[in-house]
């Protein structure tokens, strides 16, 4: 009889527990032998920290990549995307093409963002260019909308200026009190006069080759209060933030629908009011954004200094990919996207630990199915995981996931077609053979 999978978790959520139980898996503690550990992000830090030297065996899988924060911490995500763009530019990749205003044509999908206090002066320069703009301050290390506020005057963020003597923050490197400040998207697409954002789930089973899957059942989160760009409402978080954790406490929060819409409703609405072509284009762009953001951390980076800088000793120049593609790992990210009134999607952030709390009955069903479909892919047939699995799930096993980008498959197709431009396999071709370019202009 096949051995049963032994699982551990430090997240007590029914959608998880029910899924493990229905597979007949056995719950154990983390000090025992385990095969599958669904851990919180605090725990993953310990597992992979240099000090503990945890070694995972072939039959063990965890639900986070060791340095997922390269994508899921707001400041690091921005840093990596900016670096990725610069590298593409250096190589004269067509992806990095810019328009006459100097904006990236295909890679302009994050709002202008700066790190504070590190980039304070750069930010001030940008702020002065459009002094009537609004900016959103977000603490790097927090989630669920905590600590976020809007500003429209420099005086409101004085204490983050580098020279400020009243500043009480800790050094930027430790990341403790670091903030990012982004240009606030003040022209969001409104539906029924309400602002919303999109939450999409993306599963990554490997970064190199990149294999990612988009969950078809994403949802829109609506603000319960009417959107108004007026300055008097800047402090009213119910107007501006769509996090359910915040909306839940508003007066108008409804526990039947939870202020959520399915992505298919959004599609129907957009197709009906704007037309099918622009709607398809929008969704193509959303898929493109997700893939590019993953590529930004997946690819080989130019030399990076190791974390500790050794004076007077040879500086090891290592070609190191940003994301540690540990074979014991997979990850299900929660992507937050905002669509503006020109139907342009913007990447706001990526969550490593999307909430598994259910706010409505529909929600519970969705999250239960999300975990179920995820487990069906990463632990096929409910068997003991093998970290060397081929990561090529058959179509029937995908459930509500659809393949977003399968680099392995794309490469093999390229090789079959005998690529016209004679690109060599390797980092360069992985960039240019992206599956979802912006249509019509991609060569």
């Amino acid at each position, binding site marked *: 009889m096949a051995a049963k999978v032994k699982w551990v978790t430090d997240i007590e959520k029914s959608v998880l527990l029910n899924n493990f139980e229905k597979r007949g898996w056995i719950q154990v503690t983390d000090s025992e032998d385990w095969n599958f550990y669904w851990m919180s992000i605090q725990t993953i830090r310990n597992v992979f920290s240099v000090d503990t030297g945890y070694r995972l065996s072939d039959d063990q899988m965890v639900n986070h990549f060791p340095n997922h924060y390269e994508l899921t911490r707001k400041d690091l995500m921005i840093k990596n995307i900016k670096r990725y763009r610069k590298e593409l530019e250096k190589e004269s990749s067509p992806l990095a093409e810019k328009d006459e205003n100097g904006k990236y044509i295909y890679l302009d999908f994050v709002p202008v963002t700066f790190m504070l206090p590190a980039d304070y002066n750069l930010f001030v320069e940008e702020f002065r260019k459009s002094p009537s703009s609004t900016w959103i301050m977000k603490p790097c290390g927090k989630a669920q909308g905590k600590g976020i506020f809007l500003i429209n005057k420099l005086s409101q963020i004085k204490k983050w200026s580098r020279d400020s003597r009243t500043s009480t923050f800790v050094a930027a490197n430790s990341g403790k009190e670091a903030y990012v400040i982004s240009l606030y998207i003040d022209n969001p697409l409104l539906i029924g006069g309400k602002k919303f954002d999109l939450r999409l789930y993306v599963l990554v089973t490997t970064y190199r080759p990149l294999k990612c899957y988009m969950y078809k059942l994403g949802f829109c989160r609506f603000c319960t209060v009417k959107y108004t760009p007026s300055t008097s409402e800047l402090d009213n978080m119910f107007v501006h933030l769509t996090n359910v954790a915040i909306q839940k406490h508003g007066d108008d929060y409804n526990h039947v629908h939870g202020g959520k819409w399915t992505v298919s409703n959004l599609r129907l609405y957009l197709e*009906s009011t704007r037309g*099918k072509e622009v709607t398809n284009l929008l969704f193509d762009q959303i898929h493109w954004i997700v893939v590019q953001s993953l590529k930004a951390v997946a690819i080989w980076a130019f030399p990076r200094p190791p974390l500790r800088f050794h004076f007077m000793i040879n500086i090891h120049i290592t070609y190191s990919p940003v994301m540690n593609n540990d074979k014991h790992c997979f990850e299900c990210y929660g992507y937050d996207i905002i669509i503006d009134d020109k139907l342009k999607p913007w990447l706001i952030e990526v969550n490593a630990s999307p909430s598994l709390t259910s706010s409505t009955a529909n929600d519970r069903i969705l999250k239960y199915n999300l975990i179920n479909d995820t487990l069906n892919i990463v632990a096929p047939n409910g068997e003991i995981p093998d970290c060397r699995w081929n990561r090529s799930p058959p179509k029937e096993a995908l459930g509500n996931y659809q393949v977003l980008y399968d680099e392995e498959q794309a490469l093999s197709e390229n090789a079959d077609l005998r690529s016209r431009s004679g690109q060599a396999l390797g980092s360069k071709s992985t960039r240019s053979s992206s599956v979802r370019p912006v249509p019509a202009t991609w060569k």
Partner: protein
Amino acid sequence: MMEEGADLSVTIAQIVHRLKGAHLHSQLEKQARECLHRPEIKLESLKEDVRSFLKASGWERKLQNAVYRELHILPPPGHPAAPPEHTKEPLVYMRKAQASWEKRILKSLNSMCTELGVPLARKRPVSEQKELTNKWNEMGTDEPDLSKFRPVYAPKDFLEVLISLKNPNYDCREGLTANSHWGLIQISLNVRDIPQMREAYPELSLTCSQLGIDDHAHIPPDLFESEHIRIGKKVVSEQDSAAAQQYSRQGCPTGFRAQLWALILNATNEPEDIMHYEQLKAAVIHHDLLVDNLIYKDVKLTASNDDYYFVFEDFLYQVLLCFSRDTAVLEHFSYNSATPPKSYIQGKTGAEEFTVVYPPNGVIPFHGFSMYVSPLCFLYNEPSRLYSVFREMYVRYFFRLHSISSSPSGIVSLCLQFERLLQNHLPQLFYHLQAIGAQPLRIAFKWMVRAFSGYLSTDQLLLLWDRILGYDSLEIVAVLAAAVFTFRAENLMEVTSLASAEAVLADLSTLKVMPLLQVFLFA
């Protein structure tokens, strides 16, 4: 369909009379005058040249659409000696039943009014007017105390009235015969059976392609979808109402359903329409009506709790509050069996010259009324356009779902048709259900009164409403109700109570309407 001879000239005269003085008339005159400056207009052939110009510039098409619209609402020709009530409803017993139902509703409304000490209408103080103007786009955030208001009636109250309808000429005490009807409706009307539906709805047949079936993801678009879309684009560019209606029978592509429906209904968004809407909005700002509270309550109870429509809560207020004040709606009472309720200005009860129609549009909303508007919010995001389309849908179709009449699209006929279709198609199921006290109509009624809004998923509902517009009839609603029962027949045969039957049919959100209809009628 045009009759010959005298009837035709009467019809033409009626339509000309209606269109004369309408905005379109003055626009045509203006166009004709202005085109005289054009080089191609020659004095010798003035008449023909002006006509050709109007044709080429699309104005003739607009006139055609307007005529087509008038034909839709034109009542069937009657005997010249017949009184106007006959146009509203030819059968006397139905008229009487409708009148007594209206009396009940009005009584209920008046007593609520007295009980709560709220006037039927009240002018708003200036400060309140200002506040409402500011809050116009977010009335949903208002939390008026609605606890004391109750809906004037709910569909099930109306059903009881329909069940008690009796034709004095028809003796139904004969006992069980081959023609006995097991259902709740006790009168006899001419409703179409399956063979007749097949003849009338050939575009739904198995051999005919359509949206909702042949646009499924697994089917290559070249087989039907692409061509259908191409034709649809042409119809829209030609701006032809009649063509749009015919086209809609096979379903409207999501990308231009909004334009097609507006075209079929000839619901324009000209400056005059926008102005009319603004006037209605001003009327809302100036006066508060008791029925406004009924509207608020209805929206809060229904649309605000709906997974699909909660987003549009504010649009619903903006449409329905204006709708209540639109006296243009009164026109439709000439062919509606209902009569607008009249009220008296305070202190002048009984004096004929002091009667006012209440509410101004003559329509008292009931529980679920806002669901007529909700699906349209997926198609139109400009309030005046949304309003225009909704109003036309109401005066062509929705009014029939809550008034007692003998019209084939009227709710009475739909109920009877539903029962007959189900009884003839699945007699065993029908018998079983009525034997356990779960008369099918008791469950299906609420679906039909709302034309399935709020019960089907929106994309499916829109496909259904495509066909209502395409065939200019609500019969398809009765057919779908029967098809749904048929689909769940196996489970229904197992139930032993009304409650469990309701449970089996509680969730229709996963149903695909076109396959259901197709199988029911043609398989």
